């Protein structure tokens, strides 16, 4: 497959514009950018491990987006385009990728980037023993050659359609100076527009403009990312002017903030999507009728209003909303308590006979509130629900790793490569299949998709997967959640901040007025 074909594939699969629902309120028209200033950003989460290969948290990745650049990146239409590589080719048999590196790229320590750094970075990520989280991106890699300083050739054992687009993520494709692995956790060094100065743990992180950035220096002198996890405190910080910009405006205050002419508000979806999980090893949930009954007990619109104050959109398809694999014909089941009761009775779980424990994590308070709302609906059908609030650590270890749960709820930051999404979540060998779903139909389909070249056919396969998930009610997809940014009028370039994946922030083209 030639490179041109590949790009067309990606675009068709991912669709046109990156977002649906990119809304701006009071955003000032763009005037000429000014250089200088320190932007204070109220970040909704604390950063953890600063090592881009090891960190699994979206919050840290969001910050590190400004410190690292990857070998390739995506444009706003989600096409893979050059970044640290100024060009790339794929061989006709799809097994060899050649990257031609951009000359004159400097790292923050002053050194110039060469093929050796790329080889080092890829190998570090491939090696599980370094604690790298995305090692499976490189599972099919057979060899990495560096015939000269500016060329890197990656040979695969077999065709891996998502390989290139995965490299656009910093977690897999970030290029760091050779040998810098040991210090990345404390002082990340990369080739991004800002360099890391310091972190006061739990309090703030300071970044400073890197003047030798290959794509031209940023406008801002400094960025201070202040970690304010309390939503009301964050909003107050914006109000008092303590912070220029905050992300994640609390859902219940959104109307109020939008109607305040003093602030620029940016909302987009999706930030992520949420779904209700049922453990397929828990006997009642082995029966598809019971699963469908649970689906019928939930009024998704009402839940969205109740838990998220309407900041989002219900959906039955988790695909990126504007991509061709998004099945708009698929609609959530409406709440039908009578039908649910009938199904439950048919399956042998009449009123009072089904007990479930709902494990919700306090890391997302709206999950806990959703559970409380669902509890009341379940009661109407005679299903007894008990709620267990778990800290993030406990949820991860109990539900995610040990798969020890009955019913739970989780969100995913949109995985825009459909293979990564559908395979990992619903294939019986998928890395994220913590619900223990074993559906041979889905296994077949997802395998087929991996080797299907024609983009329309591939999108169609993924639609079939979604239909199967829906028909069998393997999970209950709920909604896309809105992302939001609130900013002072002094912040310019707001429309460039949000990365196509909906979660990361890039401050390269942001500036401060006056």
């Amino acid at each position, binding site marked *: 497959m030639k490179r041109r074909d590949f790009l067309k594939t990606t675009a068709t699969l991912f669709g046109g514009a990156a977002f649906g629902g990119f809304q701006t309120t009071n955003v000032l028209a763009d005037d000429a950018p000014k250089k200088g200033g320190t932007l204070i950003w109220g970040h909704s989460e*604390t950063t*953890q*491990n*600063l*090592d881009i290969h*090891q*960190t*699994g*948290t979206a919050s840290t990745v969001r910050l590190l987006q400004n410190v690292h650049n990857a070998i390739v990146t995506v444009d706003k239409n989600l096409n893979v385009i050059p970044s640290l590589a100024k060009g790339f080719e794929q061989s006709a048999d799809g097994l060899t990728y050649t990257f031609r590196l951009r000359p004159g790229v400097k790292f923050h320590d002053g050194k110039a980037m060469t093929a050796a750094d790329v080889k080092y970075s890829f190998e570090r990520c491939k090696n*599980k*023993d*370094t*604690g*790298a*989280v*995305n*090692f*499976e991106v490189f599972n099919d890699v057979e060899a990495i050659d560096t015939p000269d300083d500016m060329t890197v050739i990656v040979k695969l054992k077999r065709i891996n359609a998502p390989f290139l687009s995965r490299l656009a993520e910093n*977690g897999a494709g970030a290029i760091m100076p050779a040998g810098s692995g040991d210090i990345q*956790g*404390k002082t990340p060094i990369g080739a991004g527009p800002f360099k890391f100065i310091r*972190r*006061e*743990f*739990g*309090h703030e992180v300071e970044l400073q403009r890197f003047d030798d950035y290959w794509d031209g220096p940023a406008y801002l002198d400094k960025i201070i990312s*202040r970690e*304010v*996890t*309390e939503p009301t*405190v964050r909003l*107050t*910080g914006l109000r*008092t002017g*303590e912070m220029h910009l905050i992300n994640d405006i609390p859902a219940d205050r959104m109307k109020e903030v939008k109607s305040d002419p003093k602030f620029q508000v940016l909302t987009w979806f999706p930030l992520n999507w949420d779904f209700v999980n049922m453990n397929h090893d828990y006997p009642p949930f082995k029966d598809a009728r019971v699963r469908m009954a649970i689906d019928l007990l939930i009024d998704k619109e009402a839940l969205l209003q109740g838990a998220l104050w309407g900041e989002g959109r219900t959906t039955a398809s988790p695909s990126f909303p504007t991509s061709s694999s998004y099945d708009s014909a698929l609609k959530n089941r409406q709440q039908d308590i009578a039908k649910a009761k009938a199904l439950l009775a048919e399956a042998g779980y009449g009123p009072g006979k089904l007990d479930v424990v709902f494990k919700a994590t306090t890391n997302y308070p709206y999950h806990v509130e959703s559970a409380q709302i669902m509890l009341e609906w379940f009661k109407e059908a005679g299903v007894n629900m008990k709620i267990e609030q778990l*800290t*993030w*650590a*406990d949820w*991860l*270890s109990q539900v*995610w*790793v040990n798969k020890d749960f009955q019913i739970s709820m989780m969100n*995913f930051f949109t995985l825009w490569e459909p293979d990564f999404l559908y395979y990992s979540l619903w294939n019986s060998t998928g*890395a*994220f299949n913590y619900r223990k779903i074993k559906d041979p139909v889905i296994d077949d389909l997802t395998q087929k998709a991996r080797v299907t070249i024609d983009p329309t056919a591939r999108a169609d396969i993924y639609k079939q997967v979604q239909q199967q998930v829906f028909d069998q009610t393997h999970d209950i997809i709920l909604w896309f959640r809105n992302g939001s940014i609130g900013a002072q009028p002094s912040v310019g370039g707001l429309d460039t901040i949000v990365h196509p994946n909906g979660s990361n922030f890039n401050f390269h083209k942001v500036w401060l007025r006056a």
Partner: protein
Amino acid sequence: MTYVLNRLLSILLTLFLISVITFAVTTILPGDVATMIMGTQSNPEALAGLRKSLGLNDPLLVQYGRWIYGMATGDWGHSLVFKVAISELLIQKIKASALIVVMSMAIALACAVPLGVWAAVHRDRWQDGVASTSALVGVSLPDFFWGIMMILLFARALGWFPSSGFADPATNPGLAVWHACLPAFALGLGLMAHLTRMTRSTMTGILGQEYIRVGRAKGLSERVIVWRYALANAIGPVMTVAGLQIGYLFGSIIVVETLFNYTGMGWLTYQALLNRDIPLIQATVFVIAAVVMLTNLVVDLLYLYVDPRVRLQ
């Protein structure tokens, strides 16, 4: 001399016990650090690799020995989740907490002693009623509730103080104190109430004593009696109680700091617990217990020095 040696040995023994208890408790903690670090990217293979590289598979005794040896030689390990040297973290955060502990103690003592004396002097009259009742109310509310009140009143309604955050005292003392004010007040109010009650009851006890009556008979003015003689004798027990309260304070600090997002030792401990960051939990719990123990020790010694009965000997 032997007394000092005895005391020293006693301290070491207690520190040892504290370390054992801390270690024992944290190893029974459910939840897994490796999972915490990797987040939703966790999968069994990667986790096993990570666990190995973190040394979590070694026998408990070995891990304990490693920990103790590390502490003794100044290497307190690294926070597994935040990847920073724990000793650095501790120094930063201890400074932060020390600031609010000292401030709250100062506020509490400065207000409680005069208030308590006033109540004792006007015992059983309306002044006593007012003071005692307010003190009683003060003791009855949880510290974080005072914190919430502070936030509502001083931060939101009046805007005098910031409702969160913290600044490094070393680089910016003024700002540091400003951020520390509300948390210190929240902590201090409960303490103040407690100390007021203590001062009042100690003072009333003393004012009823023989030698006070003798002093009055000798013609000394009431003010001299109260402030020079009675208070001097009351200070001892009051300081003792204040010192013992440090223990309770370090518990409350966890809640108050979390409420104000004031990143000190209490906040750090809570984060460590949430994240199952074992080395950090061990370090923070150990430090807090050790500080409390040492404070109690100092208070004991001070009491011996200050207690009039002992001094008179």
